[in-house]
C-alpha cells in the first residue's frame, strides 16, 4: 500500500503523504471502516491497481509498516508445508465460557481443519495439546475432524491432555507425549439439573461410551483396560480415575511414543514422505 509514496520521494512517507484514508478502508461506504495496517490488509497482493515497487534502501515497506504499527519487525515468513493446531485451555462447547477461561473455540477450529484438508500446499498437521478438557461434544467434534483428515497428522501432548483432551490426542495418526505431561482419565459427569431416575444413568453411560469407543478405536488400549483406569479409586483427590504421566500413557497403549517437538516433526515428515 505504501508503494506509490515511496517511489515518488524515495523515503518514508509522512502521515499526510500516505494514501487517502478511503484507500485503506474496507467494507465500502457504510461499512464499519476497519483500518488495516499498510501491507497487512487482506489480498494486498491481489489488488489490481497496486504498482510495482521500486527497489530502495532499508527494510522492506512491510517491515517498516510493521515496526510503525506494532513496534516489532515482521519476520520473513516462508510458507510451511505443515500446519500446527494448538488445543489449549478449555475446549469451549455450546456455551460461551467466561473470559477468565482460555478457550479453544470449535467454531473456528473446525473450518480451519476444512481449509487444511482442501489446501494442496498443506501436507501435514501437528496438533499440540495443553488442555484441561471441556465440552464433550466440541471435543469429540474436533477429534473426529482430525481423525477424518486425509493428510498425515501427529499429536504432541505437553503439560496436560486431560479428559476430552484424550480423544483429541489419540485422533492423530501418531501421538507423542512429553516426559512430564499428564493425562487425567476419569468418568464424565452431568452438569445442571440431574433427575434421579434410571434413565439418567443410562444417558450418562451412553455419553461415556462415545468417549470410550473413540479412544479404543484410535489407540492400542482395550475397552476393559480404559474403563479400569477410569474407575480406579484412590489416585485422584476429588474424583475417581487415573493420572497417567508421560511414559505411563505409552505403556497403557493410549499414546504411541514419548517424545518432544523434534520427534513429532520428524515423524510427521516421515508420514508425509510416504
Amino acid at each position, binding site marked *: 500500500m505504501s508503494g506509490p509514496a515511496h517511489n515518488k520521494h524515495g523515503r518514508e512517507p509522512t502521515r499526510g503523504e500516505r494514501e487517502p484514508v478511503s484507500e485503506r478502508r474496507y467494507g465500502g461506504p457504510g461499512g*464499519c471502516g476497519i483500518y488495516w495496517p499498510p501491507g497487512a490488509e*487482506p489480498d494486498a497482493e491481489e489488488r489490481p491497481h497496486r504498482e510495482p515497487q521500486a527497489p530502495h534502501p532499508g527494510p522492506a515497506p512491510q517491515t517498516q509498516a510493521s515496526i510503525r504499527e506494532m513496534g516489532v519487525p515482521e519476520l520473513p515468513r516462508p510458507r510451511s508445508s505443515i500446519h500446527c493446531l494448538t488445543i489449549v485451555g478449555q475446549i469451549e462447547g455450546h456455551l460461551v465460557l467466561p473470559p477468565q477461561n482460555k478457550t479453544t473455540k470449535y467454531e*473456528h477450529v473446525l473450518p480451519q481443519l476444512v481449509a487444511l484438508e482442501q489446501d494442496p500446499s498443506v501436507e501435514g498437521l501437528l496438533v499440540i495439546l495443553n488442555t484441561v*478438557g471441556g465440552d*464433550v461434544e466440541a471435543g469429540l467434534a474436533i477429534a473426529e475432524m482430525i481423525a477424518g483428515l486425509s493428510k498425515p497428522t501427529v499429536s504432541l501432548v505437553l503439560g496436560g491432555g*486431560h479428559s476430552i483432551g484424550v480423544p483429541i490426542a489419540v485422533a492423530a495418526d501418531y501421538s507423542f507425549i512429553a516426559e512430564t505431561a499428564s493425562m487425567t482419565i476419569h468418568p464424565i459427569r452431568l452438569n445442571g439439573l440431574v433427575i434421579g431416575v434410571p434413565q439418567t444413568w443410562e444417558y450418562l453411560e451412553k455419553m461415556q461410551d462415545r468417549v470410550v469407543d473413540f479412544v479404543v478405536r484410535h489407540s492400542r488400549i482395550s475397552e476393559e483396560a480404559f474403563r479400569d483406569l477410569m474407575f480406579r479409586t484412590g489416585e485422584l483427590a476429588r474424583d475417581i480415575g487415573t493420572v497417567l504421566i508421560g511414559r505411563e500413557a505409552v505403556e497403557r497403549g493410549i499414546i504411541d511414543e514419548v517424545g518432544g517437538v523434534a520427534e513429532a516433526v520428524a515423524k510427521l515428515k516421515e508420514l508425509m514422505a510416504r
Partner: protein
Amino acid sequence: MILYTPLPLERVLEGWDRVAAGVEVEAGGARLLVEACGPGLARVLRLLSTDPRDYLRPEFSPGAVLRLGPG
C-alpha cells in the same frame, strides 16, 4: 452440555454473567462478530464466513484486535 474436565465447575463458570455480546461488522471481505475493547479498537469474538481460507487468516482469529478507521 457435558463439561468433561478435572477443573471444578465453579471455577470454569465463574463470571458467566460477564460474557460479551458483540456486534457484527464487515471487514476485509468477511463478516465478524466483534466487541469494542478501547477507543477505535475491536476484538474479534467470532468469524462468520463460509470460506475455509478465512479461518487460516491470523487477523480473523478469535481474540485478535482490529483497529477501526476514522469514521
